[in-house]
């Protein structure tokens, strides 16, 4: 039975991508912790993962000619990128809560490492099957 590498790695490859995007968004919140008017953002993991997993999850480019290739541009974050509901916004309109962002970043780091572990276990299994040892 042929098994595609993508389906073999399962959801973890997509999860790794979404977690990496979330790391960018959280890093951005922490970089803008003192920017007036900046609104903290976060990625809705469930939506982002569903988008990344489905083939029609990205944004399709319009084809106006039969020679155009159907390209599925992956939407980075996209609809899954939401604004955080502020607990205590500051007077200058900034809604970044440094502690909350740090906690979210730590949470994301642990999940990223867990996904990496899952992936490396899958790859090790594959190597065992290939080498037969």
């Amino acid at each position, binding site marked *: 039975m042929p098994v595609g590498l993508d389906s073999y790695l399962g959801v973890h490859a997509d999860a*790794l*991508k979404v977690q*990496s*995007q979330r*790391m*960018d*968004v*959280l*890093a*951005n919140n*922490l*970089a*803008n*912790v*003192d*920017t*007036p008017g*900046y609104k903290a*953002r976060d990625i809705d993991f469930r939506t982002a993962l569903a988008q990344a997993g489905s083939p029609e999850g*990205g*944004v399709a480019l319009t084809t106006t000619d039969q020679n155009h290739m159907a390209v599925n*541009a*992956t*939407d*980075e*974050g*996209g*609809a899954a*990128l939401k604004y955080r509901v502020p607990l205590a916004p500051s007077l200058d309109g900034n809604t970044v809560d*440094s502690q909350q*962002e*740090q906690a979210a*970043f730590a949470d994301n*780091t642990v999940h*990223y*490492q867990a996904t*990496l572990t899952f*992936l*490396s276990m899958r*790859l*090790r299994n594959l*190597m065992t099957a290939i080498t037969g040892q």
Partner: protein
Amino acid sequence: MSSFKIFDIAGSGLSAQSVRLNTVASNLANADSISGDPSTVYKARHPVFQAVQQKMLGAADAENRSESAVRVAGIVESQAAPQMRYDPGNPLANAQGNVYAPNVNVIEEMTDMISASRAYQDNVEVMNTSKDLMLATLKLGQS
């Protein structure tokens, strides 16, 4: 895959916070630089931060725009009035015997310094963690 964007983001945060620390240092160093003329006396400086907007791939509306870094939009001088002191023995005193001290609020500067230092540490931590994660990702399947 957004690859190494996170280093740009955290790096811009580091540079912005270090500009802020520089202005704090400048303000504190000049806290006692008096002058006989209120127009030439040192004025407290503060940086203004701004999020750098970047349109994401495939996101057409403004709602889905993502900020991708922070930058220093400019440095503004405080418009508060300088403090006047009567000190006729001072060589810088004007004809009325007054000297003018800068409008630097030392307590405000110290709290600003702590805030900048914490934010700087946050950005360093982000950079370290993401570096470790990326190195681990590069080693994927090798062990």
